């Protein structure tokens, strides 16, 4: 195990490459069709750099599809997306976007710590060991660092995935249902880590059903059946309705 013990310090992230006056994410007439009808109707969305946004909507409303299209994991059917002016999935866009998926995927043969090392060094993070120790410490899984995450329970997998998503530098953090399966400690730690990321100027787009997260963001976007139904301040009274009403 590492000699690096969790500290409160965070690795500084090189922000020089980003034009913060630009939009972090812009979509124009974006659609997605998996072959049996549109999953996303033409969607126009502007997200300024540094914004914190909660993406809400019922199951099947298109949240995951939208997030994955921004990462480049899904092909665009029509329309455009730009990430700080770059095409999604392009090398430049990948440099800025970190994606925390709702279905964590791990190598069968690497430990949590090795995943962190692999990811961090892939992104050229110099002093990853300290950040890795900090992240694992905050999530309360430092002692599991040498274990294989592919054998973890749902909640532990989620914690490992959080650490892996946050170890790399990013300007945009796309998060899909991050609170599912987390215990109270994990939930608190994640909220703290998201706050830290926002404080560093990162743009957050978080798909969630978690009411406590909605209190922390100024802007909420609601989707239903692939259509943008609401885009406005979180305090708006209709937000609650979008969160709770049946489809």
């Amino acid at each position, binding site marked *: 195990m590492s000699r690096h013990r969790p500290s409160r310090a965070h690795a500084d992230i090189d922000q020089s490459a980003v034009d913060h006056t630009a939009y972090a994410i812009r979509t124009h007439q974006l659609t997605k069709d998996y072959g049996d009808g549109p999953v996303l109707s033409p969607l126009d969305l502007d997200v300024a750099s540094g914004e914190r946004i909660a993406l809400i909507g019922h199951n099947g409303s298109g949240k995951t599809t939208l997030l994955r299209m921004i990462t480049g994991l899904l092909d665009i059917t029509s329309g455009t997306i730009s990430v700080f002016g770059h095409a999604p999935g392009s*090398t430049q866009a990948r440099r800025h976007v970190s994606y925390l998926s709702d279905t964590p995927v791990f190598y069968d*043969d690497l430990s949590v710590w090795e995943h962190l090392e692999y990811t961090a060094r892939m992104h050229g993070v110099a002093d990853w060991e300290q950040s890795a120790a900090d992240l694992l410490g905050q999530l309360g899984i430092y002692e599991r*660092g040498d274990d294989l995450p592919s054998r973890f329970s749902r909640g532990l997998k989620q914690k490992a995935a959080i650490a892996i998503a946050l170890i790399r530098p990013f300007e945009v953090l796309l998060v899909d249902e991050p609170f599912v399966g987390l215990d109270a400690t994990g939930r608190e730690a994640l909220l703290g880590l998201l706050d830290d990321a926002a404080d560093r100027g990162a743009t957050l787009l978080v798909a969630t059903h978690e009411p406590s997260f909605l209190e922390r963001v100024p802007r909420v976007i609601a989707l239903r059946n692939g259509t943008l139904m609401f885009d406005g301040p979180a305090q708006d009274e209709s937000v609650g309705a979008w969160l709770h009403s049946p489809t």
Partner: protein
Amino acid sequence: MSVLESIEPKVPAPLVLSVEELVELAEGHADAPGNIVLADVRWYLDGRDARSIYEAGHLPGAVFIDIDRDLSEPSTPTAGRHPLPSPEHFARAMGRSGIGDDTHVIAYDDTGGMTAARLVVMLRALGRSASLLDGGISAWVAAGHGLEHGVSNPRAKVAFTAQVWPDTNFASTEEVLANSKSGSSVLIDARPADRFRGDVQSVDPKPGHIPGARNAPWSSVLQEGKLLSPAELRAHFTNLGISRNTEVIASCGSGVSACLNVVALEYSGLANARLFTASWSGWASDPDLPIETGEHRLLRNGSCRDSGKVGVDELRRARRRKRMAEVEWFEALYRVYLAAFIFGGGALFVSGFVRDTPAGESFVDDVFHFGPGWLGLLSVMAVAMGLRSGSRGGPLALEEAEVRHVLLAPVDRRRVLLRPTLQRWRSLVFAAALTGGFAGQLAGRRLPGTELSWAMAGALWGAVAATFFTGAALVSHALRIPRSLATMIGGALIVWQFVSALPAHARLFGPGDATGDLPLWGDRSRASDLFTVIVALAVLGIGVLMLGRQSLEAQSRRAALVTQLRFAVTLQDLRTVLIIRRQLSHEQSRRRPWIRTKHDGGPYGEWQRTMHGLLRFPLSRILRIVSLSSIAGLAGLGVLEGTAPLALVGGVAFFLIGLEMLEPLAQEIDHGDRTDSYPIERGPMYLRLTHASLALSVPLAALWIATIGTLHTQWWAVAGISVLPAITAGLAGAAINIVSGAPDPVASSAQSNLMPPEVAGTANVIKAMWPVLIAVIGQIPLVAARSAVEKGQGAEAAAVRSAIAVVLVSGLVAAWIHRRDAIRAWMDNAARESRTTSRGVS
């Protein structure tokens, strides 16, 4: 209440004593000083003489305890530098120093407890009272107390009862080795990090540490020479993966400094550690024990970190090294041997079928004249398949984690994908060259030229076809050619080549002609044909150049499926392989059935359920079934015309048709939990589920008869007679495969472990093959008819006789499905009874 307070101390004496507490205690015992003994346990790794340092100044009244002489036996290589003394030796040493059974010993040193803890640990292991003086002699002096010089008044010798060192407190080398493999306890190593990593040469016999050990330098439990607070210690040990009740084994260089970790752990309230006395000095002296250097890291050097830049290749190499180290090479080689054994045996067997008589001159002429066209057709089909594969996201299959962690990172995707691409190409080339070489060898037995040259030419041709497939797939994927367009282009190429291959259009150029020439190199080599090799490599090259344009959506979808597919293949789980292949090629049931049937499904609705399933078959699956029927018809015709081995082809075709037609039954078995919840017997229900499948096979039967009958009208009657056995045997074979379900991975691995490998391997093959054999039996009427004709007897009568036998076999299979649960229960019961009886006898 702190955690520490909630724990019952093992012995009344406090584990750790501050100088103030010592002074207080000494005042309380002023009248009976014999009950407390201060022990000076200073010792120096660098060889300084501890006794003379003791004499130069020590706590008033303290006795000197020598780690080397009093607390250890003489060193032996594998027991380490400080093996535990014999109980008698220790008892004598203690008694000499005035330490009796009831004495409370307070040990100190000048390192915060690094050496004094050894005495504390040893005494407390025997249930005696011992405490560590926190801060040692330095804290004593710092508190303003004076030292005594020279030797303290010798104490009266007292009795100390010798006691065996308990296993509960000390771990043996065997235990540590077992633990290093199982990881059941946490092994902490108290040496400094550089010695742990093996960076420095020191007193250690060799650099490194016990595999799996975690570095917990003894100095980490101290701050300014004193122990950290229990809460701080808990944080420290938690970070090392130690929680409440974790089993901990403490080691170090020679079983001395580890004792400080033992004391600190107990003080933290987390756990009681066992001491591995031999420690690294003993472990490393045994050449048979494994060692590890560096920390637990993928990469042990910091080369990429220095440049601060990505080293994907280096990281991947490290992963591969790590994975290779885990491969069980013996087993891998055994698999290769078994595959060669079975494949080679099969090849010899099939070779025997081919008559070795050299072909006639006109046949040879035909081969060289028309051969290129038809062989070229196969190459064009490889291109067409490649185009389709690419349009569906092929041909690559990555790990899902690779897509998420590597392809989403800002790295050059082309470089990352190059290796998997070449690997995919290589494996395809290998398989195709093997098949081509085998076919060439068979051809070489009848054609002019040596078998070897024909085999080589066949292998070359196979390799080129595989290259075309890979290249076409890569290009069509990169260009994101829609599936329909890929099918159209591929279809057009096939039609073009087909037309040019027909004897009537012998002069028309076909796109595959040059490639079709390659396999004929067995006897005739034209340098111009090599152009096709260059074209194939060029297409592959273009595909490789366009690797950066691969769709991640396709990659991640395929990644998940291909992992499952590989697993299913290793288990010989045909059903799962079929399902995943369907998912890979996007073959989904139609939302609307072709025909809507009435809601009238007999007593339980199985007929209706089967019809719903079958009538939702997508067009591609229907086309596949239809072509399988035609292939079976052509093979049947071949059998009737005298090529008996084609019965194998026909049988396999009917087996595959059966698997498709019994899809509704397979669905039911895939969802066994549902079936079990129905209040009806399974066997009869399974049988009822096949009725509609049998009914919908009628058009296929008609197609089969028509294929044979129209091409050779003399066989109409025989085909009509043989169709029922052929279809029912195909369905029966498929039903056995479906109903038996997937092999149990646990049972099959147990089988392969317990049985001799040849037996287990053959048993596996038989298990996988016998459903197919049942289907092949369905072709017997055709063979019987042919042999009757050769003997001048009536073909129809022979066909009828064997047809009855075959239908009976199918009936037996149906009966087996019907009564399967009952048969199984009866067998289990019989087995149980025989066990009981044999126990009774013995």
